[in-house]
């Protein structure tokens, strides 16, 4: 079993997680405001609502990707020597990207949603100027370049250390040439797979972003709308999925410290991650099931791969986690509880996606709140829970390892809030309440108001997590 042999870049990662934690809180507050506005509890101008929605979407995707990147970098750097400066460049580009995006929204009133779907950024109906849309797109490009550099640094080190991409993906274990004991650790296999599909996604994303930029200033250069949508959703789907695939590395690395049983790269594990590599890229047409001009084979592929996508996750990570936890006498604390919650949320969150990935269901549900129901479970109770778990792990030594009452309370409040909040989306979706509407009908407001209350609980829980983290870091600095 390959063991960690390097010191991770702890201070840099702690700082990154602090930034991400602050952004997550801010974005949660924006989410709360939107739900409150939909429930008519507060009044927000419709134009501002869409700006908030764009900020919330871009901010949450950004924060999730930042935490995922930090987690992956931290754990990979325990196995191979990574050049810290690359992460600094990544973070700098990321923050500049965020500045551009926030500027485009706050100063330029850009409100086309984080998916920048063609031709909306160019046809604002006077709601925002071309410059605002361009700033948003440039911001995304800067973030993409940052990620590309980070992926290249991790990728080249994994390729050189583990004998090619195949080696890092543990293909010799699949073929039986190498025993699981000598295989790369799960963190490496997961990181390699994620880097491949995320890099491909970024390259495709860069092409469509620059094309959109040209279209903004020279509208006669019209992007093929269907091609643009395919490219955007390929990029978007891959990018947001990569966040959780990066974050799950924390589970593979941290949980064994609690159970005392190493998480090994078994043959099934290696096969599953190679399957994930293909599925993540092949499944994106399930975002386009309502585009009837799409080739039928692509839509059918989207539906079938949607079914298949859940299998590696559920069998490999969720099932394995249950096996590792069973009889392990794990000593629960905030970090372990949140990481396990992350896997549970991820596993549950995938179910509404599989349901909505069916063409017959999608026809009715796609533009309802069912979809935010899916991705809020996936993120709030999945990726973000893992990230908070990682933050708790980073400061573990600074405080008592006991699962203190304040931690238990915060965890309980966050869990209850998260379940209630996401359930309201699903209930609303099942009742055909449309998504992305600033103004709701009277009949839909009950769920909005209940969701607002649950959102408040989520924020209270998250606030305690972040506060504990800041106190933990401060304690470290003092000692």
């Amino acid at each position: 079993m390959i063991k960690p042999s390097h010191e991770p870049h702890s201070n840099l990662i702690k700082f990154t997680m602090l930034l991400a934690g602050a952004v997550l809180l801010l974005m949660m507050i924006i989410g709360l405001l939107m739900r409150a506005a939909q429930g008519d509890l507060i009044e927000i101008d419709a134009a501002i609502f869409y700006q908030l929605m764009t900020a919330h979407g871009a901010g949450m995707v950004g924060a999730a990707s930042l935490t995922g990147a930090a987690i992956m970098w931290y754990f990979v750097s325990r196995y191979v020597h990574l050049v810290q400066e690359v992460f600094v460049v990544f973070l700098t580009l990321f923050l500049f990207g965020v500045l551009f995006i926030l500027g485009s929204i706050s100063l330029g009133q850009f409100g086309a949603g984080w998916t920048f779907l063609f031709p909306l950024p160019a046809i604002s109906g006077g709601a925002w100027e071309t410059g605002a849309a361009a700033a948003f797109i440039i911001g995304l490009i800067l973030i993409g370049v940052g990620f590309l550099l980070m992926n290249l640094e991790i990728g080249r080190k994994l390729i050189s250390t583990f004998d090619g991409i195949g080696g890092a993906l543990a293909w010799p274990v699949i073929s039986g040439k190498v025993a699981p004991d000598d295989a790369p650790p799960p963190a490496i296999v997961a990181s390699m797979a994620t880097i491949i599909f995320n890099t491909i996604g970024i390259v495709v994303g860069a092409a469509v972003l620059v094309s959109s930029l040209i279209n903004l200033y020279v509208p006669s250069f019209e992007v093929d709308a269907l091609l643009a949508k395919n490219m955007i959703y390929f990029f978007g789907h891959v990018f947001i999925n990569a966040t959780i695939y990066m974050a799950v590395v924390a589970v593979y690395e941290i949980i064994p410290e609690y159970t005392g049983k190493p998480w090994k790269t078994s043959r099934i594990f290696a096969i599953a991650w190679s399957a994930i590599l293909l599925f993540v890229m092949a499944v994106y047409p399930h975002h386009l099931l309502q585009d009837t001009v799409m080739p039928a084979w692509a839509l059918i592929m989207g539906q079938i791969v949607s079914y298949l996508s859940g299998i590696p996750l559920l069998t490999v990570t969720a099932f394995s986690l249950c096996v590792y936890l069973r009889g392990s006498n794990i000593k629960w604390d905030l970090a372990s509880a949140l990481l396990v919650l992350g896997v549970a949320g991820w596993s549950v969150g995938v179910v509404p996606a599989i349901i909505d990935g069916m063409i017959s269901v999608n026809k009715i549900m796609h533009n309802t709140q069912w979809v935010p129901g899916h991705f809020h479970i996936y993120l709030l109770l999945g990726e973000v829970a893992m990230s908070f778990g990682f933050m708790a792990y980073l400061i573990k030594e600074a405080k008592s390892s006991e699962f203190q009452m304040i931690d238990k309370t915060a965890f309980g409040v966050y869990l209850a809030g998260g379940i209630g909040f996401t359930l309201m989306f699903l209930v609303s979706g099942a009742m055909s309440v449309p998504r992305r509407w600033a103004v709701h009908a009277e009949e839909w407001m009950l769920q909005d108001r209940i969701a607002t209350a649950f959102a408040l609980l989520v924020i209270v829980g998250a606030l305690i997590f972040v506060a504990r983290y800041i106190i933990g870091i401060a304690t470290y600095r003092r000692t």
Partner: protein
Amino acid sequence: MIDGKMKLLISSLIFTFCVLSKGALEKLPLTHILVQLPLLICVGYLLVEDKSQKIGEWYIGGEWNKGGYASLLIAIFTIAFWMLPRSIDAAISSGTMELLKFLTVPLLIGVPLKLGWHRTHPILKGFLKAQAISMLGVAAFIYIHAPIRICNSYLENAQQDLGYGFLYTSIALAVIWSAPLFLSQSAKSFHLQILRG
């Protein structure tokens, strides 16, 4: 391994071919941009031999080109110039520009690439490759969807063919550059690159 003299011979043959087939290759933008120009880059690339340079260490490994940045910048700016449709038009309509193309593409793209590429940090190499793939996609979009004739010398349908050529080149480069990384053998050479980088 091909030795220096052989490389010089191949380089001369390619150059001669480019000169002799000028009319045929420049008839269509597809062959002009995606056949003639890459061949001219190869001419320059093959001109430089790693070890047997009379000019010496300064030329190949001097401080002036540390990290390969200086020569890469020369190559990138020259590529940018020859990417402009206006430059391509001028090369067809003006003998001077044509001559300039035959001189600058090998000497200011091919040679600098050879001088700088092996000194370039692997991350920068990866970035430039990713950039090339995605921007070929963008060029494909521009040439396929342009509402006007971009080059006065070529017809609109010919420029669309070039657009598709960019697209297929982008896909081909993505495969060519990434496929070897899956093989352990190439990973070893990649490792050497890292040590050198």
